[in-house]
């Protein structure tokens, strides 16, 4: 795993924390555009890093599924990834890749596992862990 990627993601988490402490809210704040300039600067950082992370996660989904789901399909998906053919083997590969790349332990409780089913949830999950 390239060190650079890890560092970028770490910065991303810091940016999330600085704005809202959680990825979900970060996107919501970014969307409504009613905050002051100082926060807006942070938001820009958050959005940039969030974008990178989201694309990276989509690539990881594509790689875990051996291309059965492309990164583009994962980004555009409006149904759960399992409905697109994301198998339990692919889920295991994704869990392993995420744990290795972000140095975390994935929550595999019934509640946590929902994060494997779409990128928004996965991104929130990763943001929430830190």
């Amino acid at each position, binding site marked *: 795993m390239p060190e650079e990627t890890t560092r970028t993601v770490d910065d991303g988490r810091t940016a999330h924390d600085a704005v809202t402490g959680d990825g979900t809210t970060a996107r919501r704040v970014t969307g409504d555009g009613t905050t002051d300039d100082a926060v807006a600067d942070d938001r820009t950082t958050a959005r940039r890093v969030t974008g990178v992370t989201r694309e990276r996660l989509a690539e990881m989904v594509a790689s875990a599924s051996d291309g059965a789901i492309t990164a583009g399909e994962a980004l555009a998906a409006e149904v759960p990834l399992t409905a697109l053919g994301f198998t*339990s*083997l692919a889920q*295991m590969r994704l*869990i392993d890749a995420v*744990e290795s790349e972000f140095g975390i332990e994935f929550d595999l409780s*019934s509640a946590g596992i929902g994060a494997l089913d779409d990128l928004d949830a996965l991104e929130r999950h990763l943001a929430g862990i830190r």
Partner: protein
Amino acid sequence: MEIRFAGGRAGTAPLTWGQRAIWDTIVKTAPDDRYFNFGRVLAVPGRARPLTPARAAGALGALVARHESLRTRLGGDETGPGRSGPPSHAAGGSAEPYRTAGPHPAGEHGDPSRAAGPYQVLEAAGVLPVAVAAGDPDRFLDELAATAFDYAAEWPLRAGLVVDGGEVTHIVLVFCHLAADGLGAEVVLRDLRLLLLRGSVPGPPPPQPLDLARWQESGAGRRVAGIAAGHWEQEYRRVPPTMFGRPAGDAADPPIWRAQIVSRAMDLAARRIAAVHSASTSTVLLAAASAMVGAVTGHGVCAMLPIVGNRFRGDTVNAVTTLSQEGLFVLDLDRGPFTELLRAAGPAALRAYRSAYHDPRDRDRLTAEASRERGTPVHPYCCFNDLRFADRPDASPGEAEVRRALADTALSWPLRQERLNCRFCLHVTDEPGGLGVSLTADTRFLPRPAMERYLLGLESLLVEAAFRDVLEPVG
């Protein structure tokens, strides 16, 4: 005939987690450890024919040079030279179902040859004997697989050429389970085919067990091991100490029997349930098998040990070595609808798969701790091995079709033997007549009529659950 092979490097390393796991199992199963030998037959592809024995030998030599696992043997005090089969002190079987782990052999930097336990010894070059015969390749395979490997002295691959009029028609390979598991054997077969057709295998060199062992001992490897160990530790505190603990009255002779059901109805039903509930058929079968274990034992929690391929990572996916290990699958059987059980089985299966990539020394230690705390040995003695390569959910079969298929279900008793280091082993295979589910059980804990009822009950649960919401079965 003989093949001289010469590869790149020689070296020693601790056993990988997968090698250690299968070695522990071999030791516990001795002297019946030939049970773990397995093989493959490669029909020589048309474009590689006619194939002379000399060219076949050349391809086999290149194969052994490419995959270090095929020229790796066991070293260490416990495998003493000249010994045939596992150590004699273990040949009487382990009276204790759990063992306390010793110190980590070799450590991170130590010399593995000074370690107490066995270690892997990779040789750069050697001579591999090759048997040559005419006749039925499958019978040839059985002959080659008939005796246990001499793990320290013998190469872990037995090769045979089936000849017809001087031409090689089939190549038969029998593997020592320390060198490969089923998926590793598929990689071997694919590469052998390419060597016969093209003379070389394209792409980067495959991951090798020596490097894998070193990674597993590193900080990154220990982190992965730690996550897995956490699952075993937590669940071993709460699961039934064993799933089949009550001795039954009417044991058979010999005590270990295998029953196999081949059922197209069960295949159609499992695939339909998988499609309807966005699950894999493997998860569907794990859930149903667990529910049925609850039904025959009365336990409210089922702990089952699925054999997991552990090929989720880039450094393992194409490796020829034994990566398969047991994971710990735990399912609370709340006697509600089967679909609820299936919903819970999804994450439970993922937790089990992650727990399978573990260091057996951690597991031994945690098992001993849990056993001590609970005052009784903790071991489920209940395992599950899905040996199928494809998972094909399909919602299309109708109920009438599935019920009609029930008439073709066949049940047989293909195997019996004296010893097994488990009490309840399910194997799932794709058979020409449908889904094969075999149950190898210790009849001292589950008599033959109960084995039969278990398999037919599993079929009936799946067929029912494919078309209506059924409650979990109660024994």
